[in-house]
Every structure is written in C-alpha cells, then in structure tokens.
C-alpha cells in the first residue's frame, strides 16, 4: 500500500552526509587546504570573486573547496554570504592610472609609454601537458627586479589628445547599485557594466565571440589590457578625508572600436570597457566587446537585432546564479502541475477520439 511521501527530512540529512564524504574523496590522499586553493588555483579564485561580486580570496577558496570545484556553486555560496554583509558605504572610484601593473599590453601600438609588460600569461606557452608537474611539482623561480611605484597612463588617452577617440563623459551622477535596486530596462551604462562584470564568463565569452563573427561586428582592437593592484579608498565623514582601506587586483580592458562619423562630425574611434576582479582577462576582453555592442544607440549605429546589442536580452540572462537556479529548479517536484496537465491531455484526447468516431460514422 502506498505511503504518502514521507521521509524528506531524513533523505536530506543522508544526502548531505554522502555529499560531505564524496567532497573529501579518498582519505589516503592528503586533504586540500583553503590556503592551497587560494595560492595554487588562483585563477579559479579570481573567477569566483568576480562573479560572486565579493573580493575575498580566502572566502572564495573556501567556497571552491566546499563546492567540490563546481565554480558556479562556489559563486553562489559567495553571493549568499554577501547578502548577510552590512553595507557601510561606497568607496571612492579606484584609479586604474595608478595601478601597479603585473601585466600591460597594447595591441594597437608597438611601443607605449610605461612599456609593455607581458606578465604571468599563458599566451605563448605551448599547450603540452607538463608531466614533470605531476612527478616533481613546480619549482621554477622567476627573476625579479625592483621597480618604483609610478602612474601608468592609459593608451586610449593618447588617442584622445588628438580627438581620435570619443571622450567618455562623466555626467557627475552617482551610479546606481545593481545589487540594491531591481534591474529595470532601459538600463544605463553603469548598470550594464555592473551586470557584465559579475556575469557568467562563458555566456559573456560566447556573446563577445558572436560580435567578432558578424553579429553586430564592431572591429575591436585591444587598445590596452592591464592587470595589477589598485588601492581602494573610502571617505570617512568623521575624518573629513579619504583613507586607503585595502588593495584589490583587477583586470581592465579598453578596446578601440569601429569609428563613427558624419558630415558634421569627423570620424572618431569608439570604446568598449571591461573591468573585472583579479587576473581574469578573457572575461575583461569579453566584457569590453559586449559593452561596446550594447552602445549602438548612443553611438548612432544601426540596430542589427544581434544578441549582443540587445541589452534586455543580455542583462536578463547573463547572471549564472539566476540562470542555474531557474534551470535546475525543474528537477524539484512538479507533481501537481503535471497532474493537471495529464488530466487536460486525457480530456482533450477523449474529445478528439469521439470526434474521430463520429466522423467515421
């Protein structure tokens, strides 16, 4: 005899215990420490921080450990934790001119003031599995050299001196906060950039790639890509001045794009912008391309109905925590709705059957 669905509570407890056991894996293998994840899987940590919208490498590493390496699950843990944090205030905008760059490249100029710094990149590695890494571990030491802290000018500003690139105008208004106000369309550029910066890397990469393949192509050059440490300052009303409250690593990408012009206005290059926590250059470049694609209206371009131009489509679907939640919820019980569908289909089939029989007569 059927027993009404009982035992949900016990099932949940058992499932959690099993999950925990599998997370640990074979106990003959040393357990991963959070420090190891933070130091040795730092690019995963960066992704979790950027899409989790919380700069905290230790917590991101913990989230990666807890999620068994499922980065979207780790991002989700960070986002849920972020909800519980009180908001003390807003920092001053970070100044990326004074970034201490670990990497800085331009694809538009051969030599640039401040110099190109290749930095710790995979770009020119040959993707051959390094079996030595499995056997002996990694013992390479890089050479180091003292540098002095100095401001590094942005390449696009050199173009701007000649008027060759459009000037970004600051209208002086406070940017809205996507995490404190509901998303409403049309969204201004500040909201769009916030959404892109925390959006899913894969989704954004695909969209950016689609613009390169002709869906609202905008001829992007990487004007500059820089990665490094920036200090974060905050105004303290009691003190009457701003103080440095910490440092964050960010990746910034400025693209130089398709020029626009008219009979009255001489042609000018346009820009796309990407800024993401940590060393996350694939994401920052993608962000700049999609940002640029969404600026079609402001720059007087044609709407080609390309996915990347469609701010409403992009903003409503770029967040992987929203997307994965709604996608995966279809595995929750839907007995009741399914039952009503069964009843309806049975009823419609019966009616169709009768109609057929009558026609047969």
């Amino acid at each position, binding site marked *: 005899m059927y027993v009404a669905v009982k035992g949900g509570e016990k099932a949940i407890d058992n499932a959690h215990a099993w999950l925990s056991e599998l997370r640990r894996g074979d106990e003959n293998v040393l357990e991963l420490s959070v420090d190891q994840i933070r130091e040795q899987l730092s690019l995963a940590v960066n992704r979790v921080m950027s899409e989790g919208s919380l700069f905290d490498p230790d917590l991101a590493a913990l989230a990666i450990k807890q999620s068994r390496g499922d980065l979207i699950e780790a991002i989700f843990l960070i986002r849920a934790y972020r909800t519980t944090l*009180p908001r003390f205030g807003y920092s001053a905008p970070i100044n990326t001119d004074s970034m201490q760059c670990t990497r800085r490249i331009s694809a538009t100029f051969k030599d640039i003031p401040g110099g190109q710094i290749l930095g710790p990149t995979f770009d020119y590695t040959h993707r051959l599995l390094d079996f030595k890494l499995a056997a002996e571990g990694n013992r390479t030491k890089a050479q180091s050299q003292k540098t002095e802290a100095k401001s590094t000018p942005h390449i696009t500003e050199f173009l701007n001196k000649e008027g060759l690139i459009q000037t970004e105008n600051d209208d002086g208004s406070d940017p809205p906060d996507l995490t404190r106000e509901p998303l409403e369309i049309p969204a201004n550029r500040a909201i769009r950039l916030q959404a892109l910066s925390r959006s899913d890397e894969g989704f954004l990469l695909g969209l950016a790639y689609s613009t390169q393949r002709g869906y609202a192509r905008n001829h992007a050059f990487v004007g500059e890509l820089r990665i490094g440490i920036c200090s974060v300052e905050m105004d303290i009303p009691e003190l009457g001045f701003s103080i440095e409250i910490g440092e964050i690593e960010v990746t910034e990408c400025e693209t130089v794009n398709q020029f626009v012009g008219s009979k009255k206005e001489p042609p000018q290059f346009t820009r796309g912008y990407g800024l993401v926590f940590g060393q996350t250059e694939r994401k920052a470049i993608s962000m700049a391309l999609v940002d640029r694609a969404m600026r079609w209206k402001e720059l007087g371009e044609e709407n080609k109905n390309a996915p990347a131009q469609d701010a409403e489509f992009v903003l409503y679907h770029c967040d992987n*925590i929203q997307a994965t939640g709604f996608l995966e919820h279809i595995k929750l019980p839907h007995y009741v709705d399914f039952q009503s569908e069964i009843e309806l289909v049975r009823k419609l089939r019966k009616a169709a059957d009768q109609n057929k029989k009558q026609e047969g007569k």
Partner: protein
Amino acid sequence: MDYNFAYLDEQTKRMIRRAILKGLAIPGYQVPFSSREMPMPYGWGTGGVQVSASILTPEDRLKVIDQGADDTTNAVSIRKFFEKTAKIPTTENTEEATVIQTRHRIPEQPLMDSQILVYQVPIPEPLRFLEPRESETRKMHALQEYGLMHVKLYEDISINGAIATSYAYPVKVEDRYVMDPSPIPKFDNPKMEMEAVQLFGAGREQRIYALPPFTKVRSLDFEDYPFEPSKADYKCNLCGSDSSYLDEVIIDDKGGRMFVCSDTDYCQKMIAKHGEVSKPDNQRALP
C-alpha cells in the same frame, strides 16, 4: 554564526515590506523589488522566502508546503531554514499556522483572516510566454492591453476545443490587472477569493504582488467557454474525499495507480475524522 532574525537584515526587510504594502494597495500589480541572493537557489522559492522573512514575527507559527505536502524535500528545507534563522515554531496543521508559505497549491481548508498565504512564484508575468520582453509587458499592463492573452485563449479553443492551460491559469484582479496565480492547478483558482491576505514573491524576477482579503479574482474565460476548475474524477484512496485535489501515484509496473490528496494535512484530518478508506471503490481501471 548568528544571523539576524529570519536571515535578512532589517533594512532589506523594510524595503520588502514597502513593496508588499504597495502591492496590497494595487492588487495584482507587480512591484519591482531588489531581491537578495538567498542561501537557496533561485527557483527554490527565494521570492517566497524573502516575503516570509520580512513579515515573520517571533510570535508567528509557520507552515511550509510544496505540492500541498509538508514533507516534500523543499518544504522541509525551507521550514528548517526558518527554524534555524528565526527560531520560530512551525506546524503542519493548516489551522494553527499564522503564515503559510506554499509552492503550487492552496490548502483545501479555507483560510482565515488571521492568516497570510505566501506564494513562491517562478515567472510573475502572465504575459511572458506571449511577449518575452519585460519592457513590453509592463507597457501592456499599464495600458490594460490584454488582447494578446484573449487571442491566445481563443486559439487554444479553436485548436484543442478547450482552453489548454491547466495550471498557472491567468486571472483578472478587480477588473484591472491580469495576474499570474503562480503555478497552482486551475482547480485552486476559485479559492483565491479568500479571507486571508495573499502575498506573491518572485525572487529571480524581482517582483512582489499581493491580494488583500476578499479581492475579486476572476479566471479569464469566454461566455460560451466558461472557466472550469478541474481535478481527477476520483476520490482519495486514503481518506475518501471527493472534493480535494488529487495526485496520481503509480503503484506497480503493470500500470496500476491510485489517487491521493495532494494536501497531506487535509488528508490526515479526514482520516482522523472518518477513518481510512480500507477498500476504496475507486481503484477501478482508468477509462
């Protein structure tokens, strides 16, 4: 680690309460609110959880159901969440609860004016599947431009001979807003004109809407094709009720099946009152 009462901080609760009040003032209107990331995924009832978290007081007694049942996994999980973060008593008894959070059902027992029913809503926009753009659907509501919905229902009839919507059946509230009742079976639609306050929370979509007590709620239909609430044409195999909504359960691999109340609390009360139906007369083969 100690969280604030019911997890959310007081500022966030205030923001959500404002949205609820606005929703109550404009029944059926979807109020945007700044939904927070909760420790359960979007799609698991984060909207309902945020609404419940914002209205709960330490004196409340909470009931959580999913598919009508208190013991489905997600109902258990949400109940535990509030036991842990709000330390409030919970109950499975519909009568005893002051706040009932639900997914996909309205309890069989009529609710009272001292109770609040909180719905978990996946897609709050009844026009969404006719027009995917939020920027468009908000205009359509503002202009009461609901022709597209009527055309859809008409096309259903012309193709299938009946309105082919069995759950999340759209309603019109106080002759003004077309509203999604959340994915309850259309059997439950008539119950929405009730004594209790009804609050709807859609977390991922960042919308809250509400129905004050005794609000006029009419399921959309046509004069010659009137709305029909429907359920399986059987009695419950456990309690014998012929008026409650039934789940169909497959009991063997030969196609055998039985029907039981989806509202487990109601079913148990009926059994306590009348005894279990031992030889159910409704285990006949399906037509």
